[in-house]
């Protein structure tokens, strides 16, 4: 390793290559190592909708981005400092995100005619001066690994597959990262194939040495550990955290978890993950479709399970009729929507926050359901837990909103202390000898009793027809209908009492409030931090609960001259805020299938601050 190293605060690297090039794996390894050296970090994979599009094609490009820092950070970053591309298609798809002056590392071996043509290049960009804005390092990676493994007599394909390790070794060198964890991991992964361990380790080291000996880099960099809170950390993605949150709620409530699912990107992983937990007694059920999966979940809830179903927008649409049934029967049910870009099938692997209105209003008639959103990958854990807790306490279906970005993005997570989590108390009703009234309510929460089949003396019938208050018998009485509609509404509105006071980042009075919900948290926080550093009077408020809204939000929004609501949709939360508080909030509405970029938020905020009113 060169001893000419410079300290640096913050780096964004993106790896991009063919789906077959192992970019996700490379990203994972870089992330694991980065976490271990104590940086704060955020990651975001970006893969194509096709399983494995033809090699070298634009459609087949897969990418992984990581930001790491010696400071507290909130996103995988917007503008890329270092872009590693394994072929021309990857260059074509990603070069526009590399900041001027940024470093481009390209696998020159793959820039032959055929691949250039597949990517739509007429001339070789590595030689035609079109990349003058960047620091370009073109490396014959294929040749270099071939040489490194020459004596091993491995099949060509196997040799080719080690290219990502070479690139990884090179980036490790650039930031002074240790190779040992990766070597250890390779030994585990290929336990039964020592020749693959050997090949990959050699490639890794070759890349690392290449950094050292090549003249191109005048220096490597160090990114010091970030001042994170004390404790044990792991790196975690949003979907995985969500699964753990559900499992935790099951353990803490003592209720068996029933998960009714049907595969759909980007929610499938939750089904995949939970089905691994058979030894926890988890019952996952891959149903014939989304309707069956929510139907089975409602049935399981009726029977006394902690019932959960998950999907993405189009699948949630299919569940909407059954959600109404859960509303009127007032059963606890957690409905998770990992949002993706639409409309219709849309861009199934891309992110968006545009199912907010669907969550709030996507059912016939007045069907109030509480809606909670996760704000970061690790927050998915707490959001899932909180959703279970509230659903059980209030006897209500609840919707959890996450999205493709949170689902596969990752960040370091300070492991929770399970005993610190708020308790979940569940009591099934038992007979007191009197006629059972399934719609008598708890005075505070307005929850109805949970009386599960198998309990003697509580035999009763529920269903989708309007119920008489108290008895739960079918009722067509006009006044009763009005009353029940208001009761269901009041029950959900009462959940405000579960919501912590809104945290304000910045002064409680000021020129501009940037107000967000869900996954834009990191981008907004990054932007606001920078704006505040520049001395601007800007604050950030972020809600996790979209329904009900926090009780204090109405007062907060009135304290600022202007309000900006950035969202990955066309202004849905914005409309709520305007209707609720009659404030002339402005939207920033980005629907590019990608997380919102914090520098764009800065730009818009600055424009608003400058423009008179």
């Amino acid at each position, binding site marked *: 390793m060169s001893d000419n190293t410079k300290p640096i605060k913050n780096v964004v690297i993106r790896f991009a290559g063919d789906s077959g090039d192992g970019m996700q794996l490379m990203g994972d390894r870089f992330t694991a190592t980065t976490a271990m050296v104590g940086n704060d970090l955020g990651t975001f994979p970006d893969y194509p909708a096709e399983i494995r599009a033809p090699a070298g094609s634009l459609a087949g490009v897969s990418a992984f981005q990581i930001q790491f820092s010696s400071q507290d950070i909130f996103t995988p970053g917007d503008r890329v400092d270092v872009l590693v591309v394994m072929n021309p298609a990857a260059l074509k798809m990603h070069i526009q995100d590399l900041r001027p002056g940024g470093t481009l590392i390209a696998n020159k071996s793959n820039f032959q005619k055929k691949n250039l043509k597949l990517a739509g290049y007429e001339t070789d960009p590595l030689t035609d001066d079109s990349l003058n804005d960047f620091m370009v390092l073109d490396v014959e990676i294929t040749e270099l690994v071939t040489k490194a493994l020459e004596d091993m007599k491995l099949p060509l394909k196997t040799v080719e597959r080690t290219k990502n390790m070479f690139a990884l070794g090179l980036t490790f060198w650039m930031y002074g990262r240790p190779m040992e964890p990766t070597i250890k991991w390779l030994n585990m992964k290929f336990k039964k194939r020592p020749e693959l361990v050997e090949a990959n380790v050699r490639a890794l080291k070759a890349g690392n040495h290449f950094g050292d000996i090549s003249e191109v880099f005048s220096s490597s960099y160090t990114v010091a550990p970030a001042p994170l809170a004390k404790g044990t950390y792991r790196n975690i993605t949003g979907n995985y955290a969500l699964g753990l949150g559900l499992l935790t709620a099951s353990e803490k409530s003592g209720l068996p978890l029933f998960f009714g699912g049907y595969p759909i990107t980007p929610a499938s992983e939750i089904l995949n993950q939970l089905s691994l937990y*058979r030894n926890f007694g988890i019952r996952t059920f891959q149903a014939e479709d989304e309707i069956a999966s929510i139907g089975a979940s409602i049935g399981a809830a009726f029977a006394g399970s902690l019932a959960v179903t998950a999907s993405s927008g189009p699948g949630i649409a299919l569940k909407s009729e059954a959600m109404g049934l859960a509303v009127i029967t007032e059963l606890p049910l957690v409905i998770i929507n990992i949002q993706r870009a639409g409309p219709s099938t849309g861009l199934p692997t891309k992110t968006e926050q545009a199912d907010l209105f669907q969550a709030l209003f996507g059912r016939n008639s007045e069907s109030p359901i509480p809606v909670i959103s996760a704000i970061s990958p690790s927050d998915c854990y707490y959001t899932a837990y909180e959703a279970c807790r509230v659903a059980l306490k209030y006897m209500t279906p609840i919707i959890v909103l996450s999205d493709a970005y949170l689902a596969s993005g990752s960040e370091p997570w300070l492991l929770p202390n399970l005993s610190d989590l708020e308790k979940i108390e569940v009591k099934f009703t038992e007979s007191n000898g009197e006629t059972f009234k399934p719609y008598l309510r708890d005075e505070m929460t307005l929850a109805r009793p949970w009386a599960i*089949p198998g309990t003697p003396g509580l035999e*009763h019938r529920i269903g989708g027809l309007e119920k008489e208050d108290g008895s739960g018998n079918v009722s067509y009485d006009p006044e009763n209908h009005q009353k029940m509609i208001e009761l269901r509404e009041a029950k959900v509105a009462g959940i405000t009492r579960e919501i912590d006071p809104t945290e304000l980042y910045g002064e409680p009075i000021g020129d501009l409030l940037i107000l967000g919900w869900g996954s834009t948290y990191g981008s907004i926080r990054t932007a606001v931090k920078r704006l505040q550093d520049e001395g601007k009077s800007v604050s950030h408020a972020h809600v996790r609960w979209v329904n009900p809204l926090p009780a204090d939000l109405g007062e907060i929004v009135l304290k600022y001259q202007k309000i900006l609501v950035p969202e990955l949709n066309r202004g849905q939360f914005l409309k709520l805020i305007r209707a609720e508080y009659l404030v002339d909030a402005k939207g920033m509405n980005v629907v590019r299938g990608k997380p919102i970029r914090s520098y764009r938020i800065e730009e818009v905020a600055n424009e608003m601050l400058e423009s008179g009113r």
Partner: protein
Amino acid sequence: MSQERGQKLARQDFISNQDVRWCPGCGDYSILAQTQKSLPDLGIPRENFVFISGIGCSSRFPYYMNTYGFHTIHGRAPTLASGVKLARPDLSVWVVTGDGDSLSIGGNHFIHVLRRNIDLNIVLFNNRIYGLTKGQYSPTSELGKVTKSTPFGSLDTPFNPPAVALGAQATFVARSIDRYPSHLQKMLGRAHGHKGASFLEVYQNCLIFNDGAFRLLTEKETKGDHVLELENGKPMIFGKEKNKGIRLNGFKPEVVTLDGDYSTDDLLIHNETDKNIADVLTNFTYDSEFPTPIGVLFVAKMSTYEDRLDEQIKTAKEQLGEGNLEALIRGADTWEVE
């Protein structure tokens, strides 16, 4: 499962306090009565029964049963019932559905629940019409049926419910008729007794929108010649004078008269467990030249989905140990910040 509390239950115990709201004379009344009569004999505590229905006249059924009940949404009863049974395999779960509910909007759930062989008892009230929406044709209505939505006659070949069920790997298929109380009670008992998904089709008269749909099977003068009551191990005899039978000519079934030419020995012997016989019997539809078979058409032994699931959980716990949440949350790669 056995009766856990003292005294034996009676029909009365299964009558709920809700007024029954079917049209006076509707066939649903009989099915309700036979069910209420049959349940006490099953030896299961009342609180362990769950009746789950979709939407339709027939689907109002759970309200009238003094058990746990769920009147769900159109076509989806099998999905809710699956959830109840998978969560609580100890309960006796019944699905009550109509021909529209189960075979029109609910067709997919119907075939999937049969395929999975979840231990549910599915009772389909087939009146060959949509009752609750006031008389449109259903997927079991005969071709050319004139109804509210098909004033010039319907255009689709009907489903044959047992054929659909067998095509979907059903392990128990039976049929009865609203107007055959003791047969119906017997079939309800058989359905319950079968471990796995049981499918019982009950012909039911809707006197408002499709009166007499099964007249041939219920009127004194015609029923003898039109109903074939199946009994396992017995030859297939029918007819007012018990003088007709079903014989196989190669693959082809035919109706023969037990005069000099044919005797009981020539007749096909019913074997509930023979899939080929079941296939032959399903082709005897109400609209065909054959008598309509009632009774158990087919039954097969097969483990249930919920047992396989329980087994899998048990094995996983044995092999991996009871799940440890703290360890799982830690995962493999952690680091400390001091």
